[in-house]
């Protein structure tokens, strides 16, 4: 049952986990780590082993597949949840932009490690750079004449350019490790990555639940919200940071290039299904979950790239809904 590769990966990345833990406030407490370990092995492992027994699908019992499923279940919730507040404001590219700048963060962390021997967890580098980029994008849109899509395009390519230059500076030595960040991977999802995803997921869901009304108002009618003296800038900052959280926590499995798809595709799919905004949020999460679970399963069964499979399944769902909508 235990996959030796996955075990080795777990040991290898245990360091990564504790480092990320000491720096990410949510993972600080050892107690939390303990609870999470218990949750992962006892609850998640138990459920999936039971599922494996019932369905006869052996791969549901593999710990690394369980981690992959748990990851996409989280991404399926937070992606559409945050994406719903971006898509209807023509800010769909924000996720993609932040993901590409997060890549610069990964490259920076690996670069510091390779040249100065500073062990910065790559995902922490990604998170810091993505949050900074989120604030830069907002400032560009607010204080300069740059139209938002041009501002996004500049930050997107700028981030990716910085990342590629940093990699080339190390003489290509780290480019091997970069691949898994670019395209994502099922097998390299560590306990630390899942821990990050679950805790980010809780933060994102909690934040959206608390700030739901200002988020909806600003999404629907930003000028009226400003006239009503809502703190629109604070809402926008929150949204940018939540987006950065989502792309960074999900990029290990989805890959930098594709991670933004789950912020957009399920939301667009759901926009035809829901009547109220709350309904469409629910359908969006449902579409995200289905795409994630089906994508991971297909990826495992046929040995395909996980991120790509998930996105293609999500797009197929969109086409199916659009076609069904036209027929009825």
């Amino acid at each position, binding site marked *: 049952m235990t996959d030796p590769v996955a075990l080795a990966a777990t040991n290898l990345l245990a360091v990564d986990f504790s480092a990320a833990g000491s720096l990410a406030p949510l993972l600080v407490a050892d107690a939390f780590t303990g609870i999470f370990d218990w949750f992962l092995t006892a609850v998640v492992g138990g459920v999936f082993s039971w599922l494996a027994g019932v369905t006869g699908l052996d791969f549901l019992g593999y710990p690394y597949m369980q981690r992959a499923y748990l990851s996409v279940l989280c991404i399926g919730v937070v992606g559409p949840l945050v994406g719903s507040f971006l898509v209807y404001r023509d800010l769909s590219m924000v996720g993609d932009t932040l993901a590409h700048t997060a890549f610069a963060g990964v490259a920076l962390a690996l670069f510091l490690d390779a040249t100065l021997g500073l062990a910065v967890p790559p995902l922490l580098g990604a998170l810091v750079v993505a949050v900074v980029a989120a604030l830069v994008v907002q400032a560009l849109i*607010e204080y300069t004449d740059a139209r*938002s899509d041009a501002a996004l395009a500049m930050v997107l390519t700028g981030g990716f350019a910085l990342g590629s230059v940093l990699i080339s500076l190390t003489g290509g030595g780290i480019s091997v490790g970069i691949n898994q960040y670019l395209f994502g991977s099922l097998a390299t999802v560590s306990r630390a990555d899942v821990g990050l995803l679950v805790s980010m997921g809780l933060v994102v869901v909690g934040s959206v639940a608390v700030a739901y009304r200002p988020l909806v*108002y600003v999404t*629907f009618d930003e*000028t009226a919200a400003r*006239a*009503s*003296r*809502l703190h629109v800038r604070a809402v926008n900052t929150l949204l940018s940071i939540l987006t950065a959280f989502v792309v960074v926590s999900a990029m290990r499995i989805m890959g930098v290039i594709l991670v933004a798809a789950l912020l957009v595709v399920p939301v667009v799919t759901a926009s035809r299904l829901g009547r109220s905004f*709350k309904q469409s949020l629910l359908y969006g999460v449902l579409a995200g979950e289905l795409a994630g679970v089906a994508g991971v399963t297909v990826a495992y069964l046929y040995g395909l790239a996980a991120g790509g499979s998930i996105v293609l399944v999500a797009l197929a769902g969109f086409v199916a809904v659009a076609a069904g909508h036209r027929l009825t």
Partner: protein
Amino acid sequence: MTAVSLSDVTFSYGDVPVVDGVSLDVPEGEFLGLVGPNGSGKSTLLTLMLGLRRPTRGEVRLFDRPAHDFSDGERVAYVAQDATDAARDMPVTVREVVRMGRYPRNLFGRFSADDREAVASALDRVDIADLADRRVGALSGGQRQRVFVARALAAEADLLALDEPTVALDAESREAFYDLLGDLNEQGMTVVLVEHDIGVVTARASRIACLNKRLYFHGDTDDFADSDALAAAYGSNQRVLDHDHGHGHHHDHGHDHDPALSHSDARDEPEDES
């Protein structure tokens, strides 16, 4: 009490003045029609009144507070020109939009009985209670404008500011919509309406302000017809157009070619989308 008070307000983009030295008061309970040719700065003046922009020079007061510092969000309701665009694509029901009117009063807590009552009576007041669970994007233009007015009613706003709300409406729904605004005004709501259709405004508004960067007329509706402000305001704009672009047929209220406004548009959009 004065709802809005402008004294010597000037607003420029760079060196281009869009609003120049405007002083006027809007007492509570007034229905002010803000007219002027396209590109005359009337939309900008409305955003200045609401404190959404700060004037380059002069002072704007909103309910006796500096407008930029005003914090009673529920007293002010604004229906922007592009508000209906956003409403088209987003899945959101009429009730969800009208509930937004309560958000300035209750942003995080549970909705109280008062909140729900205000939403229900606002829906009733503008005759869209039967549409409450419909998607806003599926409504007609006239129904959609009523949704925005209902949102203002749910807020129990004192000042309703609308920027050309009936551009996309047919004549009949336009009439009905202005009847509704007239009724609300009679019940005490202060209304400031930006409108290019002068006939409609003079039939409904109690006061008229005619603007083309400068204020050409401000007074009672009846006096407006007798004054030559209209010709002066529209005429001067036409000369500007002739001079700058060589085509000056402006009587159809068509698309705007005024350099000041196209510049202002370029600045507006990123701000609105941020």
